């Protein structure tokens, strides 16, 4: 029970409920650590971690980097923009070159679905998926669930609606897997064009009326509209999207109950969520960011524990 059932963190779909429980319990301890005057423990001082970001990232990259530093690991950072990837090097070659520098753990974000799984089969290091295309973003889902657990006591039996661009969202898929593993009910809400066709096969209900979805839920996890992943127009205008699926104070105040509002960031203020909601006491957006460091420390710690000398 004190060890993860997996060798890499490639996606939530490879985890079981015990793994999530173990990660959360470990994260509890790390949350205490990062609130100390000196926020650092020496556990991973002989571990080297490479952060490979083939896609842009601010929050996730900073959060991973901070988590690694708080655990005293040595880190090297790599962004595709400034690398030999542009010169035509393959993924395996790039990573193997980095591993020759004696790296133990690779944290990777990549635009292609399954890049982490592919890498885990071909290189000798622990892989942590920090987002692969529109597929999974496991650490985000873990920190989302962790934040719900912190706010509401537990995830089991809670009703969570994921609002927005479900089609292009790796956060949505990982969240669905994670929430269901912990016994929560999940609905998705958004324009039908942005909801994947076969989402019902995951046991997820679709609701296209935002008001009904919010009346049903305990927690609303609001996603960003990912314009950069859209090759065609999925809705007529941003203004129309905001009118139908944007969350504002008025809708929340008319619900007759206080729901929890989450957002994985980056926020488009005034589009999917208004500023007064994002900054209200119902929002746990900044708690999510804080918990992200603790949860990532837990994941890295638990995987590093499996590396034998």
């Amino acid at each position: 029970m004190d060890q993860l059932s997996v060798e890499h963190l490639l996606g939530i779909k490879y985890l079981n409920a015990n793994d999530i429980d173990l990660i959360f319990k470990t994260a509890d301890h790390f949350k205490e650590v990062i609130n100390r005057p000196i926020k650092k423990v020496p556990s991973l001082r002989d571990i080297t971690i490479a952060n490979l970001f083939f896609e842009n990232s601010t929050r996730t990259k900073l959060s991973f980097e901070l988590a690694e530093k708080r655990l005293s690991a040595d880190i090297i950072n790599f962004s595709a923009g400034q690398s030999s990837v542009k010169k035509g090097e393959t993924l395996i070659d790039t990573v193997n070159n980095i591993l020759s520098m004696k790296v133990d753990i690779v944290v990777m974000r990549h635009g292609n679905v399954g890049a982490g799984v592919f890498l885990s089969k071909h290189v000798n290091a622990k892989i942590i998926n920090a987002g692969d295309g529109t597929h999974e973003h496991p650490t985000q889902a873990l920190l989302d669930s962790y934040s719900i657990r912190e706010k509401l006591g537990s995830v089991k039996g809670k009703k969570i609606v994921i609002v927005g661009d479900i089609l292009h969202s790796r956060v949505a898929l990982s969240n669905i897997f994670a929430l269901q593993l912990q016994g929560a009910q999940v609905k998705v809400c958004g324009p039908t064009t942005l909801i994947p066709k076969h989402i019902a096969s995951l046991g997820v209900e679709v609701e296209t009326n935002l008001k009904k979805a919010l009346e049903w839920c305990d927690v609303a996890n609001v996603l960003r509209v990912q314009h950069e992943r859209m090759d065609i127009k999925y809705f007529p205008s941003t203004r129309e999207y905001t009118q139908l699926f944007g969350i504002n104070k008025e809708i929340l105040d008319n619900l007759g109950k206080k729901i929890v509002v989450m957002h994985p960031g980056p926020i488009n203020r005034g589009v999917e969520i208004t500023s007064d909601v994002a900054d209200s006491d119902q929002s746990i957006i900044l708690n999510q960011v804080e918990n992200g460091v603790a949860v990532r420390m837990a994941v890295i710690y638990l995987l590093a524990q499996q590396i034998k000398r």
Partner: protein
Amino acid sequence: MIVDNYQPKFDSILMSKITLLNSKDIEIILHRLACQLIENHNDFTETVLIGLQPRGSYLAKRLSNLLQKDYNIKKLESGLLDITFFRDDFRRRNAPLAATSTEINFLIEDKKVVIIDDVLYSGRSVRSALTALQSYGRPKKIELLVLIDRRFSRHLPIQPNYRGRQVDAINEEKVLVTWKETHKKDAVYIEQR
């Protein structure tokens, strides 16, 4: 001469578990330790007690209660420290290390700290605790209090300032401390491994 009806004088010698201290012994020892602490720390305004998780926490809580109830110490700060992330055997042992919680809600800057643990063996836990404590400030002084001091088994140059009982147990033997809170009985046993 063959003694065929040989009866050992002490049943316990043949058993794998020998009682070293019973609850009465432990009570006397706790009172003595409390008095020794008072000798050096007076009213504890400058002193904090830190129990090492998991097993030192019972001793720390017991001593803290005793000092407050029987010895009239008005204000006594005490906390619990988990040293898991500071251990030097991470990834060197087969069983994974499970962390417990740390409960220190104060700074130890310029305070006198008394680290409390049940058994002092190799000294490695105390070494880790010394490092872990740095996260909470720079104390004026750190002392060590243990219920059982296993002599001749140290890996590091660490010795207690206060000891309940010194024991010369060999390495194959294990010193086991049980508390009322967890095992219904205060006792210290020596077990054959």
